[in-house]
């Protein structure tokens, strides 16, 4: 009961969506579309779970005086401010836009731009001619980098053309094989789910 009912729900809904995609039966199409929007609402409501457990972790940290409780307190305060201001004034209010522009935007792009620094250090460390594979990866990456920045053209006018060729030809081949493989893998996973063998997502572990 505790496992079979949820399993049945999943199987029926997967089959419903698949039929909806390949067959044009008005009844099925309507039902499937309704389920789709309903699910969007349900996953939005699930955000509450996250907030409850997030608050729980940080409150516990403060109460038990564990390290970094100051940071936890700051996080709870900003969380509360952002929820309250958004709830009271609405998300389109100028002050909310101001908070968004001056707190979330800089931190969002600062965090994302850390990727640039980390890519540089990872490239330095990993792009060594250890093996033929590593060398190919390195050469392709360097050519594309030179092709993208104006400095590549300044060295040799062929870099942009060569980098475009890499993107158009070998890259296309590789990407195609990858996505075909992924589609096959996903199909196999779904069939395992439909046969009731893959139950990991229902909390059974495997």
């Amino acid at each position, binding site marked *: 009961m*505790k496992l079979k009912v949820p*399993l049945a*729900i999943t199987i029926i*809904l997967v*089959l419903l969506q*698949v039929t*909806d995609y*390949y067959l044009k039966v008005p009844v099925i199409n309507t039902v499937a579309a309704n389920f789709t*929007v309903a699910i969007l*609402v*349900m*996953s939005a*409501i*699930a*955000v509450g*779970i*996250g907030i409850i457990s997030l608050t729980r972790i940080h409150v516990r940290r403060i109460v038990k005086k564990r390290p970094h409780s*100051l*940071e936890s307190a*700051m*996080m*709870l305060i*900003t969380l*509360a401010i952002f929820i309250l201001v958004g*709830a009271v004034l*609405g*998300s389109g209010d*100028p002050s909310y836009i*101001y908070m*968004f*522009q001056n*707190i*979330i935007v*800089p*931190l969002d792009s600062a965090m994302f*731009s850390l990727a*640039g620094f980390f*890519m*540089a250090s990872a490239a330095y460390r990993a792009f060594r001619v250890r093996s033929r*594979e*590593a060398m190919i990866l390195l050469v*392709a*990456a360097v050519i*594309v*980098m030179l092709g993208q920045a104006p400095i590549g053209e300044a060295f040799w006018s062929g870099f942009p053309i060569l*980098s475009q060729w*890499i993107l*158009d030809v070998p*890259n296309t*081949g*590789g990407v*195609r*094989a990858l*996505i*075909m*493989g992924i*589609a*096959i893998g996903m*199909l196999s996973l779904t069939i395992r789910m439909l046969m009731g063998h893959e139950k990991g997502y*229902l909390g059974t572990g495997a």
Partner: protein
Amino acid sequence: MIGLDARLVGILLSGGLTLMAYSFLYRENRVSRIAEHIYLGAATGYGVVLSAKYVYDNAAVPLAKGNTFWAIPLLSSLLLYFYFSKKHFWLYRLPTAAIIGVGTGIVVAADFRTRLTEQIKATLLPLFVANDPYNTVNNLIIVFGVLGALIFFYFSKELKGPTRTLADFGKYILMVTFGASFGQTFMARISLIIGRVQSLYIWPASILLPLAAVLVGVAIAWDRRKQRTPRVSAGK
């Protein structure tokens, strides 16, 4: 509306937060941790507000207007909250199973077509183009690249002989793909750093720059001294 002074404060605030986040590049420290937690609170709170607005506009309002259909998702998602109950814990599985069923169903159906059959179709290229050696070579690389990379993932047994060679070719094609992807992404991420640095050059955020430089210098000197005095603080 927000006046001029608020604008200057905003520039200072966003510049300060950027520098606080960047201080992580030197090492994890209290300043970067504070930025991290402010960000966590702000971004998560913003996410909650938007989700709540979505539920309110798209389900609660229509329900209030008499569209009873919306009672179904609203009520059934409450089952999710049995997660916090010790006794009826398992009830959360019902709405979750529904979310998973719809979520995977949508993808698998569309994916089998767009990813598998459409990709095979796109790869059906002539292996020889008359009087056009350039395209002949390109087509050969694409076709054998796809074949090789497909075979490279063959799980059932270790490959030997000609299939091994083909799989090796596929592996090299994959490496080119990864390299190209790396190069292309690198450009994008550098653009982000450029954007951040440009925002720091705007007055009055620029006054933060020398301040940050001094702080980093102090931190480095501090760490050096700590290293020389053998293990005074066992923690770091």
